[in-house]
Every structure is written in C-alpha cells, then in structure tokens.
C-alpha cells in the first residue's frame, strides 16, 4: 500500500492572492488557506533563510493537518564552505525538531545545482552530509546529469535516501528523466516544461508553465509506477507562476481521485496476477 500526496513547492506567493487565497488574505494566513486545498507542502523559504524551530512550530500550529517537506538551506547545497557546513547542518537539523516531534515532517530535500559535479571531493562531501543529517527522511535532487549513474543509485539505496524524480523541459543541459526508488519514499518535482525560458531568464519566467490534461495523465502513470514499492509518494508542482502549480496540483488530484475514489491523499496497491 502506498500513499500519494500532492502539493506545491512553496505557498507564499503574493500573486496567488486572488486565484488561490481570498482577496485581502495576509501573508501569515496563507498557509492555513493552503492547507484547505492540499495535504502537503514543500517549504522553499528555508533555502534562502536558515529556518528556526519557533518559526516551523508556528507553521505547524497554523496548519496542523499539513505534512511538510523542507528544502535544505543553500549553505548545505549551493554555497558550501568546508569550514562551516557542519555547523550549518546542525542549525538546520535543530530547526526541524518541532515538525519531527509532531510527526509532520515527510522529507528533507537536498537540491544540488548543475555546478555540483560528480567528482571525488563532492562525493565525499555528500557522503558526510548524509551521515550528519541521518536519520532524517532525506531526498537528493541532482541537476547535474553525471550523478545519474548506477553507483549513485546503489549508494542511495544503501543509505535509504530517496532519489528525486524530476520533470523538466527537455533541453540540453538538463539531466535525463529517471524514476528510481532508492528508499521507501518517492519524491517527484514538477518544474514545468517551458523550454524557451528555462535558460537565461528569471526564476518566475522559468517556472511559467501549465501542464495539459494529457501531460498530467501521463505523469499520473509515472506516479503510479513510483508508488509500486514505495510507502509514500510526494508530488510537488513548482510551476508557481500565475498559480499554475495550484491549478495543476488540483487537477492531478482529481485525476487520481477519479481512478481510485480518493482525494489528494490516495492509496495505491501493486497488483499481481498469478500465471
């Protein structure tokens, strides 16, 4: 049995006021409104600013039903300082305690940029980071295609760390599509398929994309395959521009529910037929 949870990457976008949140909603009320629509959210602010335990505790209080994934701070993935990262990792880990205590932390996402190459030094760093953050429910996302090899997958399986599956524009420089279960948790990030704006534009334009129903139906098949063997599948839409992530997340939830009669939270069972 597997649980599929669908949500968005981030929730705090002012342009969502109107299409998603009622007019006049204050930013501190966003999360409570969000929780009325989705069972899970991927917190992204934590990448830019080191989160604090009190802050995360308040977030949980404002949306008690919500399950969280949280993106690791950039000091652990993008701007790594050999002398200081351990200290940063400790700070980050401590901040998660309220979510861990309330058993609402589903995943910790370590998203590495394309400049994070598959090199011995980086591999040693990743190994150390995974040790320091263990036994958190870790997920690793690589944007550099050289990490998409059998040794990486085997290493993640040994450590029971999830390998993030991605949906990205099919443009040169992006990693290949790879859905592989390396832990009881499966994690799919949907970044949109805007080829024109992917390279060389601002973040808002990069994620300006609306998946069609046909594309969502195909994605649903990928999700169902990931669900075979996984305890939980977390699916996050990152095409946040113009609230398209919300539109797509709702629609995908509907498509999932049509199949199985559930809402956003749906169980899937692998079937087998005897010969």
């Amino acid at each position, binding site marked *: 049995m597997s649980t599929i949870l669908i949500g968005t990457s981030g929730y705090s976008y002012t342009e969502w006021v109107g299409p998603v949140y009622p007019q006049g909603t204050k930013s501190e009320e966003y999360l409570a409104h969000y929780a009325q629509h989705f069972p899970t959210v991927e917190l992204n602010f934590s990448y830019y600013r080191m989160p604090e335990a009190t802050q995360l505790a308040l977030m949980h209080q404002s949306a008690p039903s919500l399950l969280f994934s949280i993106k690791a701070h950039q000091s652990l993935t993008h701007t790594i300082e050999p002398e200081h990262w351990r200290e940063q990792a400790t700070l980050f880990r401590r901040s998660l305690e309220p979510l861990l205590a309330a058993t609402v932390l589903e995943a910790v996402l370590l998203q590495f940029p394309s400049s994070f190459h*598959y090199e011995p030094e980086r591999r040693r760093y990743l190994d150390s980071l995974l040790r320091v953050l263990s036994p958190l429910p870790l997920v690793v996302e690589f944007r550099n*295609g*050289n*990490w*998409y*090899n*059998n*040794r990486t*997958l085997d290493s993640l399986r040994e450590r029971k760390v999830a390998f993030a599956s991605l949906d990205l*524009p*099919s443009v*040169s420089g992006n990693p*290949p*599509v*790879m*859905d*592989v*279960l390396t832990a009881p948790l499966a994690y799919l990030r949907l970044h949109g*398929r805007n080829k024109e704006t992917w390279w060389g534009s601002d973040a808002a334009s990069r994620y300006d994309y609306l998946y069609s129903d*046909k*594309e969502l139906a*195909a*994605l649903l*098949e*990928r999700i*169902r*395959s990931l669900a*075979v*063997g996984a305890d939980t599948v977390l699916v996050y839409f990152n095409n946040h521009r113009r609230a398209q992530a919300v539109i797509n997340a709702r629609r995908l939830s509907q498509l999932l529910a049509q199949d199985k009669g559930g809402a956003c939270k749906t169980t899937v069972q*692998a*079937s*087998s*037929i*005897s*010969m």
Partner: protein
Amino acid sequence: MQNDRASIIHLNVTDFAAAVAVAKDPQLADKAFAIALEGSARRVILNPSRRAWDEGIRVGMPVSLAERMLPSLQILPPDVQATNKAEQIITSVVQTYTPHFQCDKGGHVYLDMSGTTRLFGPAVDSAVRIRKEIRERIGLDGAVAVASNKLVAKIGTRTIRPFGLAQIREGEEASFLASQDISLLSGVGQAISSLLRVAGITQIGQLAQLDDEQTIAFLGKKGLALRDAARGLDRSSLGPSLAKQRQVIRKVSFAEPILDHASLKAALVSAAEDASLQMRSENFGCSLIHLTLSWSDGRSSEASKRTKEQWILDQDIERVLWEVALQAANRRVSLLAFTLRLSDLHPALGQSDLFIPTQLERASSLQGAVDRVRTKFGPAILCHATALCHAH
C-alpha cells in the same frame, strides 16, 4: 511527457526466471530462493531472487556455496513453461504498441516506437504504460529505458535496474554513458574489465575518450568497436521477432516406404541434428518434441514428450526423439514420411563459463565444437554414425 526523437524502448525484467517464479507464486516474494538446473552435483545459480541477491547470492555461484552462505536458501528448478507463458504475454502486450519489436532471452524486449507518437504519444509515455500493463497482467515489474538506440537504452535499464524508468535524450548519449560503470557496457566481462582497470578505466566515459591508437594498444583492433559503443554509437536495428519462430520443423519423406526401425532411427537422428543445430544457433532450447509419422495406408500417428526444463544438446534431443518415435511407431505398416517439431522454444538457460559442471562441460564443449564445424563446412561434414545409414 515531452517529445523526443529517441524512440527505442528497452524493457528489462531483471532475473527473469526468478521474477516469473514470484509472479506465479507471490508467497515467494519475500523469500530467498534461486533458480538452478537439477541433476548435477555441481549446479550453479542461474537466477537469484531479489532477497537472495540482497544476501549475496549471485549468478554463476555454485549451489553448494550459496547454500553454505545462506542455509535457508530455497533452490527451484527452471520453470520453462511459466517463463514461456510470461514471454508470450509480454509479447502480446508490446505488439499492441508496435510491429517492430525484438524479444531477446531472459526478459529483454526492444521496441522501435518510430512513427507511433500520434497514436500513443511520446515513446517514454508508451514505456511507462507498457511497464504498467505487464505488471498488471502478470505481476512482473522491470526497468524501462528510452533512447535513440538499443545500446544506450540497454545501458539505461542496467543503470536503474531492477525497477524504474529512464529517458536519455538524443544527442546526450555520450554524456549519459560517461559516468556509468564500465561493467554496464555489453561486451565488457571480467577479462576486459580487469584489463581496463589496470589502465585506470572504470567508467564508460574514460573508454570513450581513448583515440584509435590507444584503444588498439589496450584492447587490439576489436577494441575499437567497444570504444565506439562507449561513445553511444550503435546502428544495429531490431532483429526479427522471435515470437514468429516458436518451433523448428523438419519434414522427411522416404524415397521408398520403410519398415525397419534402423532406417527410421537413422533418418530421425539426421533430422534431429539438423533441427537442433538451427535451434542452438538462435540460442534456444526446446521443451517439447513432437513427431508425426505418415503411413503408407494414408493414416498418421503422433507422439510427443515435454519437459519442465530444456533440451539443448543433440544427445538429449536424439534420445528423447527415439522414445517418442517408439510411442508413435505402433503399427506394422510401411512408413512414408515423418515431421519433427522442436517446440516451446525458449532462450537457452546457459551456465556461467566459470563454473560449468565437468560432465556438462564436456558435452557442451563437444557440442559447441561439432556445431562450429558443421556451421563452417556444412551440416553434412560431420554427423552421427547412425545418420550415415540414412544418408546412404
């Protein structure tokens, strides 16, 4: 999923025979078991289950060693009928997507999805659906990869196996292969792997970077093909669909009606040698031998014999065929003709080169030598003494 010109799908059901055993008996799913041929004191593991694999059991390992390592290990004989049936179902699924497919041994299927986008959408979407359909119909899961050629698609499934999905975009084959382990490249076995390791080559990309001179120095002229493969170059097309060749048939009509068993035996041995040579050349074994005798009074009689394992070598096929003939030849009427069918063809279950039991090794080795001579100089150059009687 997005459009991409890469249109070759490779489906790889890892440890196929063990996976089929689990599909047939789901209670085996959490058990450590392995498939091994029966009847030899020095049997080797043909297919370990996932659980057995996790415990360190590997293909080619002597069963005695595997049992010492894991006393709870359950050994099962190959179930050729079940694997045949599974292959037939897989074939029935894939042929609804494209007429261009190739079923290779041990749960490997290639599909060429060129020109199917309008019908089924991008190839990678078809790959996901095919995997799902096979899983739902027979409980077999596997790895699927989509690439611009067979070689890269196969390395794709080897990268992610036992389960998963990979899509390698056209033009990015070399960069995808670059960081893969050299052992994933077809043609790199233990010997070449050791040779390359001496040169510090452990990843496919390192081999791809060698120029012609360096490659020849390390690996000889034949190494150039391997180096090109490391660069993701593969122009091979899909082979003929083996689904259409599920039996090898030989029809023999006697110049004059015969009554004696010696003449019949000579003709049967000759036909069996010929049919089994063709079967082995395509790397198959058979599980069913069927014989139809046509009598001079216009009637016919039939007999057949089936095994749960496989018959591959001449000596086994000739022995069983004679038993079948004695069953069918139950009349005292002149015989005009016979038809021999080697059926239920299934990829030959090979033994690892390192650990072939001595007796089987001798027989296989002799058969291999005979086959090579007959293939090179023609079937008539070498035959069983009994068959000479028929020839003359």
